[in-house]
């Protein structure tokens, strides 16, 4: 999925990185705990979070993720967006709560393998896709 598509699905505002909306993302993760994000090393992807400090951006950089979505209309404090911009990270902001934002992207196919088709309920307790 292109970042532009994700932004559209989430009715998101682009806070920085408008020139990178054509980049592809293959997976996403929703969390407010950065250690949990760090524990799941994966393909480049999107982080959805309600946390709005600079460590969010550093976590993305460490994980080679290229897009963060601040949910619930959270406004990051000064400096965060600038820091993201300097480091080539796209920052989106949506009014949607975490659950709905993740759900919409998942239903649109983000983070699902092509052959998986419709969402299925798994019983592994995995909650980071």
């Amino acid at each position: 999925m292109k970042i532009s598509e994700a932004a559209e699905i989430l009715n998101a505002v682009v806070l920085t990185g408008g020139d990178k909306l054509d980049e592809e993302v293959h997976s996403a993760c929703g969390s407010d705990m950065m250690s949990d994000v760090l524990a799941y090393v994966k393909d480049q992807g999107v982080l959805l979070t309600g946390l709005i400090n600079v460590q969010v951006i550093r976590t993305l950089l460490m994980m080679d993720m290229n897009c963060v979505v601040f949910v619930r209309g959270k406004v990051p404090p000064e400096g965060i967006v600038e820091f993201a911009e300097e480091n080539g990270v796209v920052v989106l902001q949506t009014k949607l709560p975490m659950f709905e934002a993740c759900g919409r992207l998942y239903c649109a196919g983000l983070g699902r393998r092509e052959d998986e088709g419709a969402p299925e309920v798994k019983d592994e307790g995995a909650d980071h896709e």
Partner: protein
Amino acid sequence: MNNEALHYHFDVDGASFANAGRASVETKKLLRQIGVSPDVIRRISVAMYEGEINMVIHAHGGDADVYITEDTILIQLKDVGPGIRNVEEAMKEGFSTAPENIRALGFGAGMGLPNMKRYSDDMHIDTKVGVGTTIELWYRLK
């Protein structure tokens, strides 16, 4: 390390949580310039970032040193903080003494040390209560 090793030093500022992670971001940039493989860079990034955050939230900051030779990378994180009373317990997933205000910042899930172990080839912890903690993260390049 032999004298051909590249060495980079970073002061980890213990006074400001906002600065926590700077050394790891800089190290990642350096490793990219040197041409270390992306896979190794990712593992170093995760482990070092967790270690650096720990130095700030548990130990008032310290020194981060990166040593690179042709076949190994060593990340050494050294602090003169309170030390770790029970290393075995601290290594358990979910064990944390971090206060609630740290959790509100996105850390303190008790995943740091386990992540550091998982994302290094070798990890050594040298710690003494009241004296400090030195953690070495080793990576084999060949």
